[in-house]
């Protein structure tokens, strides 16, 4: 089996003569959280729907668990848990009763599946409150509980934090992280909020007007998000002495025999360079890395930015 749990090739969706998803090649790696980032209407939900077979594919193909899903839907879908927009629950039943129905329909992987799923999302089990009386946040939580009810290998979550208050967002974020880090689930999640994705995802795909502009690991992106002065000098001990004595900073780290990073970006680079030269330390290169993720996204989305 390949390392990709979801792989799409030239995935395209047209509504009439309008192209909402344009030749998208998505690669979701096993055991990781993949964040699909894009503004409202960028095509995130349509991609997820096509992966789940909820809407027909115009052209291209979707591979899930390493194989094309066409004709294998019945075998594949029980291994996926999903929440796409507002899930359909019966308003005149309680949360637990709703989940019991889904558990009966789909089957479960362990006894007490309903209770466990509700515990994970922090909803009371066997509560008397009817779904119709649920708040937006509780509905969203029940939706996630439904997605994890059968302990699936792959979760597809479309904007799971929509409609939640800040504390709720942090809670949902934490248990999504737990599902990935403690249980090894693979998760595809979409959001239009950059900071949210930055906190969650291992890999990130940026989508704008139906086109996947960039796909990269968060670690790669974070390198673009760092603020430090990178110095290459001939004599590290001497350079560090100068930094400590003349510039009174200890906020630096030595990477190898000739490279150090100064994290205190308030230092005047010209002054540092000059001081080093004066003391006979040759400066091979010095470079200020001062980019934020936000700047970067503005750059790749053509100045419009995300969120």
């Amino acid at each position, binding site marked *: *089996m390949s390392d990709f749990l979801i792989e799409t090739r030239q995935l395209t969706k047209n509504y009439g003569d309008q192209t909402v998803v344009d030749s998208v090649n998505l690669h979701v790696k096993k055991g990781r959280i993949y964040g699909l980032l894009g503004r409202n209407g960028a095509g995130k939900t349509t991609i997820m729907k096509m992966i789940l077979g909820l809407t027909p594919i115009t052209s291209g193909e979707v591979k899930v668990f390493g194989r094309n899903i066409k004709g294998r839907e019945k*075998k594949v879908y*029980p*291994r996926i848990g999903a929440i796409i927009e507002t899930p359909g629950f019966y308003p005149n039943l309680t949360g637990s009763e709703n989940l019991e129905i889904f558990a*009966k329909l*789909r*089957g*479960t*992987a*362990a*006894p007490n599946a309903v209770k466990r799923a509700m515990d994970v999302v922090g909803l009371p089990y066997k509560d008397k409150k009817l779904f119709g009386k649920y708040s937006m946040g509780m509905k969203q939580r029940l939706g996630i509980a439904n997605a994890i009810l*059968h*302990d*699936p*290998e792959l979760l597809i979550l479309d904007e799971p934090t929509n409609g939640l208050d800040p504390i709720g967002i942090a809670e949902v974020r934490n248990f999504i992280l737990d599902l990935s*880090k*403690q*249980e*090894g*689930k*693979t998760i595809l999640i979409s959001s239009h909020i950059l900071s949210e994705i930055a906190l969650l995802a291992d890999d990130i795909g940026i989508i704008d007007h139906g086109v996947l502009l960039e796909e990269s690991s968060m670690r790669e992106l974070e390198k673009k998000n760092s603020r430090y002065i990178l110095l290459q000098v001939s004599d*590290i*001990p*001497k*350079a*560090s*002495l*100068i*930094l*400590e004595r003349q510039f009174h900073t*200890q*906020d*630096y*780290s*030595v*990477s190898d025999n000739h490279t*150090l990073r100064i*994290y205190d970006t308030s230092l005047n680079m010209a002054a540092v360079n000059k001081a080093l030269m004066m003391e006979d330390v040759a400066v091979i290169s010095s470079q200020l890395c001062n980019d934020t993720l936000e700047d970067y996204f503005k750059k790749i989305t053509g100045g419009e930015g995300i969120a």
Partner: protein
Amino acid sequence: MDINGYLMFGCIFFFFVILYLIIKLCRVREQLSLIREALEDIKAGNLNRRVLTRESDMTKQICYGINEIAVGSQSLLIQQRQSEQAYKRLMTSLSHDVKTPLASLVGYLEAVEGKLVTGEEAEEYIHVASEKAYRLKEFVTSLFEWVKLDAGEQVYHFEVYDLNELSRNIMAEWIPVLESAGLDYEIDIPETEDTVRVDPNAYTRILNNLFQNILVHSEADHVTLHIAGEEQQIGITVTDNGKGISKENLPHIFDRLYQCDHSRSMQGNGLGLSIAKELVNAHGGTITASSTPGAGTTFTILLPKVL
């Protein structure tokens, strides 16, 4: 009704019984093929695979059993992977925690040796250099201690001691340190005897690490040590009035290499509290922390008494 009528009725009855059994058989066969497929997948290493089963299935218990084994192996595997990652982080932090102070240490010494500084300034340089050397030594010591604990190679010499007497001796060493750091202290150790099976070196290390932690991280100006014997156990509480630990950080402070402030200041190495926890565990005790950000932190150690 004649014989034919009964025969007819019997035939229909048997027909339905056979139909029911055939349906049941088909369902079990279907289940078995699902189970076989899932087992192949699990055997190939996909420990996230689950077999779904319904309440009425004959194979329910088998499916639950298979899932349980997969879940168990998966969590073991993840634990292993996490400890591997911790080692990797250890190596990365080693390269910073050792290389950087070492480089500047060499810088200071070279300046003195090359007569770049003389007189009082030279003496100050030597003072700074020796401080850095001591800090390095401390770091390397705790690193080895931690590795030894982690590998389970630590040898303890447990004996029955009066914990109060032992604690008084340890605090006698700490009083001048606290005074020179400008910390008020309040030490409340009962005059009576409370006997505990401890390794005195390990117990000293536990208290030292707690106080060291307060000294380096808390920004407190008052610290309390309070010991109270109960029926079964002795409670040792260390309280400071410093900046406290936030709710997000609190659950992780005993994790190895966890540091609340991610700045690269030279102090602290993220090992002290995790060593303390390992040592307390070895004594059959517990260590917990509670904190109010802005108001201070309380560490509570409970050790079982010798009755």
